[in-house]
């Protein structure tokens, strides 16, 4: 941290987090709090998604595979372990799963990776369903954990601060440089001596760990989960479109996309529950056609600063 501008940026970030942390104490409205929780959840998911996909440009649809595993960790261990233990197990599971998947598959690129990651989410869902049906003989689980909405809010805020700080730090290091080269041209990256597989696997594991813990934190909010709730594909799709709308390469890009889209989707699903799928698709297409490089790029063009 050399320049004064950077100090200001870190200071502003810390102040913003502190301000947001105090918000629920002053705010005594459950509906607004639950909206804020949704915004925070998708902010963490989209930023964590962009941690890996922003620089590498790999489109991952596996978000919900990790999210669901996190949610199930809470459902299974919530009564057995203290809360910190649950989160630690979720973190560990996320990392292990990401390492296995990453080592095996990050040599795939482009469309193969997209399809693979989508398949991974479906496969995880099928396996959990199969396990529940055949071994526990029950398809759903109740989540008994003593966690209030405010606690969920603070924990998500903490996760968001962590993942943003991590992204900011990575951009300053050699890892960040390596990532940018991979994103520009993977062949070049290999030729200048970057071990692309290691870089990608490390990033994928970090990104997945955040997503898994988010799933664990969010589980108490449902009180009841089954595979179709915990592994709902729409979570992957919404995360993806939010990050893309904002601009996954920029630090605050995913936040810029998450906040308005969470509110929009909330409004759409409340007002047009039957047509939600159509509207979601249309939003997707509008973003792909009209904002191909994210809102951040539009702002930059207007502001004239790189």
């Amino acid at each position, binding site marked *: 941290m050399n320049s004064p501008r950077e100090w200001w940026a870190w200071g502003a970030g810390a102040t913003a987090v502190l301000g947001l942390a105090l918000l629920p104490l002053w705010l005594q409205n459950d509906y607004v709090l639950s909206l804020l929780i949704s915004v925070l959840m998708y902010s963490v998911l989209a930023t964590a998604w962009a941690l890996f996909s922003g620089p590498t440009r790999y489109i991952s649809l596996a978000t919900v595979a990790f999210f669901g595993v996190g949610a199930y960790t809470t459902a299974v261990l919530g009564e057995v372990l203290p809360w910190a233990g649950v989160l630690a197990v979720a973190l560990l599971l996320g990392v292990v799963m990401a390492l296995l998947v990453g080592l095996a598959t990050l040599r795939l690129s482009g469309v193969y990776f997209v399809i693979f990651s989508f*398949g991974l989410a479906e496969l995880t869902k099928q396996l959990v369903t199969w396990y529940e049906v055949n071994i526990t003989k029950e398809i759903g689980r109740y989540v008994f954990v003593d966690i209030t909405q405010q606690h969920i809010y603070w924990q998500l805020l903490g996760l968001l601060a962590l993942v943003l700080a991590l992204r900011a730090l990575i951009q300053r290091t050699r890892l960040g440089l390596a990532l940018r080269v991979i994103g520009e041209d993977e062949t070049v990256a290999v030729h200048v001596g970057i071990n692309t597989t290691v870089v990608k696997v490390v990033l994928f594991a970090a990104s997945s760990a955040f997503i898994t813990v988010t799933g664990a934190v969010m589980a108490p909010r449902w009180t009841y989960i089954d595979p179709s709730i915990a592994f709902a594909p729409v979570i992957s799709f919404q995360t993806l479109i939010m990050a893309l709308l904002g601009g996954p390469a920029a630090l605050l890009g995913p936040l810029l996309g998450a906040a308005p889209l969470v509110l929009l989707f909330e409004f759409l699903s409340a007002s047009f529950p039957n047509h939600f799928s159509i509207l979601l698709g249309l939003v997707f297409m509008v973003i792909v056609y009209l904002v191909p490089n994210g809102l951040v790029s539009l702002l930059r063009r207007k502001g004239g600063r790189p």
Partner: protein
Amino acid sequence: MNFLDVLLAGATLGGLYGLVAMGLTLQYGVARIMNLSYGEFLIAPAFLTYVLVSQFGLSPLWVLVLAIPLGFAVQWLVYQLLLTPLVRRTGAGPALEVDSILATFGLLFVVQGAMLVVFGGNYYSYEYLSVPIHVLGSTVAANRLLVLVVAVLVGGGLYALLTRTRMGTVVRAVSVAPRFAQLVGINVRQTSALAFGMGGALVAVSGVLVSMFLPFSASMGTMFAMKALIVVIMGGVGNLMGCLMAGLLLGFAETLVASFVDPGLTLAVNFGLFLLVLLFRPTGLFGKAAR
């Protein structure tokens, strides 16, 4: 279930998968568009058949004939209206792959949502040719045999079209070397649209066939698209015969697991196979090189 039953069930299911995947391999292999909304354009004709058969008393076989030009027209239009702008914007470079995935993704939700609004989430089916036929001591429904026959006929016909005609040569040229095809006077974009439309005709035909013997619902499209993708990759992108073989292989694997292990694990088998192929033979079991 004896061995012959499994063989027959596997062959009919596999024939269908092969047929479904052939359209996708044309679309992806030639037009280089990974069409994620593919499965929705299979379910939509299935619903159309349901309506025409149950409301207007039409024979599904007539709908099958109707599906060919209709399916072609719909996907040709999708290419011209929705995908051409993306091809222009990206200059058919690597960004096209990502952009087309995202755009067809949106289309998936729109079409699926529309079907959900009209038909709801229930399963639909109607009665057609479900008479049992005895083959060497085993019984199989006539409509299932019909599927296998159509898959082989259409697959064979398409193979002949692509290998024996001038148009087929043009399509294969674009598939193998899009940049050089241009140099010998081939209109790459029109050929891509043509191949995309042909894929549409194939998927519409498979949709009509599916409606004859399987109960279907508005949200089943993604499942078919995933299976088609698995088959396409297993068979080697753009390889029609590979498609049919891989489709049959998947059909057998699924039937074997469903009848001898656990019907709940068929999807897991699908993805397991898919992963294995991706990891060990990313160019496909039957492909020399994908590109």
